[in-house]
């Protein structure tokens, strides 16, 4: 086993990430800083 991949937990800073928007373009988490954010993770399956 290599070193364990770091996982962000409650109390940690969520690392910035950017993902494609369903309607085109990209959403960067960085653009949402300064706001209270609810991230809702789901799947169609």
């Amino acid at each position, binding site marked *: *086993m*290599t*070193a*364990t*991949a*770091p*996982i*962000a*937990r*409650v*109390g*940690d*800073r*969520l*690392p*910035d*990430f950017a*993902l*494609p*928007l*369903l*309607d085109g373009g990209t*959403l960067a*988490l960085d653009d*949402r*800083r*300064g*706001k*209270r*954010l*609810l*991230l*809702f*993770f*789901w*799947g*169609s*399956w």
Partner: protein
Amino acid sequence: MPGWQRFYAAHHASDFEFVAVALEHAGAEAARPYAARAGATFPVVVDEHGLTSGLLGFKVVPNGVLVDQDGIIRYAKYGGFSIDRAEDVAAVERFIRGDDPGPSPDHAPLYALGSLEQEVVATRLRLGRLLDAVGRREEALAEWQAALRLDPGNLVIRKQIWAVRYPERFYPAINWTWQKEQLACERAAEVAAGICDPDGCPLPHHVPR
């Protein structure tokens, strides 16, 4: 999702944002009808390669994660996070008001992947997506299956494979009884093959060298 759309419409304040992250290893298209049906006016992003599941260490959905103005995670619930659960909605409402959302449910992952394994899983997911996009579905499934072998407790990957291989069990409606039986059957085969232990933790000799 329709429920979250109503919640968003009622609570959308200048300093509150809702972002839906769809885990769709077989591509964004599967998410589109759900977002459309919900009339989603909030942003919906698609995570095709398990970037967020790797960052946060979750292996199931649906999940809710609350992040404050400084980017600090204040609350996380992995699995079963729902607009239909009063305690989940209450945590979000406290957070929106500026209060402490309260304690997060216990989240003790069965195991943590190594950095290399995590990278290999992400790469296999990406490769599978590329192959699937050009119609090489069996090769795509083989890549996703290889990712699952490294991360056998990952229900996001496992269910994605099922949805591609057995779409009739998922669309238009999810057959939960079938999933339970299928999971038990696959787990038993994986334990017998020495891929994971009965708890679903990967056995070390399956780590790539």
